[in-house]
C-alpha cells in the first residue's frame, strides 16, 4: 500500500513544474490558486496541476510534506518554491523565470 507521503513524492519526482491547488488550472476554486495559475501561464511554462479538493489525503498530507500550512504550493524541479505570495514576488523580480528557464515552453 502506498502512503500519502509516497504518492506526493511520486508526483514531485514525475513533474518538473507541479502546482498543488484548489480546483484545476482551468477552474481554480480559490483566489490564491487562481493567482498561482496566472503566474505560471504568464511565464508560459507547462505544469501539472493537482486539485487537492478532489483528494483529502493529499490536501492534508502536502502541508506536512512541505512544512507549509496553505494551498497553493509550487514545486519546480523537485524543490519546494512556496505559495502564491512568494510566486508573485519571484515573478515580479524575475527569479521565477530564471528558475523555470530551460523547461520547454508551451506553444
Amino acid at each position, binding site marked *: 500500500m502506498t502512503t500519502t507521503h509516497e504518492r506526493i513524492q511520486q508526483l514531485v519526482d514525475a513533474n518538473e513544474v507541479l502546482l498543488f491547488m484548489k480546483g484545476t488550472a482551468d477552474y481554480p476554486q480559490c483566489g*490564491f490558486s487562481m493567482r498561482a495559475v496566472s503566474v505560471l501561464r504568464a511565464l508560459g511554462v507547462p505544469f501539472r496541476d493537482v486539485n487537492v479538493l478532489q483528494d483529502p489525503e493529499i490536501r492534508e498530507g502536502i*502541508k506536512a510534506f512541505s*512544512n*507549509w*500550512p*496553505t494551498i497553493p504550493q509550487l514545486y519546480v524541479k523537485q524543490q*519546494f*518554491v*512556496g*505559495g502564491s*505570495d*512568494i510566486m508573485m*514576488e*519571484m515573478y515580479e523580480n524575475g527569479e521565477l523565470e530564471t528558475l523555470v528557464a530551460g523547461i520547454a515552453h508551451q506553444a
Partner: protein
Amino acid sequence: MFSAERIRAILEAQLPDCTAIVRDDLQDGEHFDAEVTSSAFVGLPKVRQHQLVYGALGAHMRSDIHALALKTFTPDDWKRR
C-alpha cells in the same frame, strides 16, 4: 474569529527584532494581510522566512486564520523597500 492585533502580538513576541504590520481589510476575522520584518530572516530564502512566520503562528494557521497574505523583510529589506 481572530484579530490582526493578536497576530501582530504573537509575531512580535515570537520572532527576534520583529515589527509586524497586520491588516484585516475584510474585517471578517479570517483573512489577513501581513508585512513582517525580523532579523531572523537575514540570509534565508523567502520560503524559509515564510516558514518561520507560519511556525510562530503554529496551530492558529490551521484553525483560526483562513488566509494570510504575507510579505517578509529583513531589517535592511524594509529600509530599502
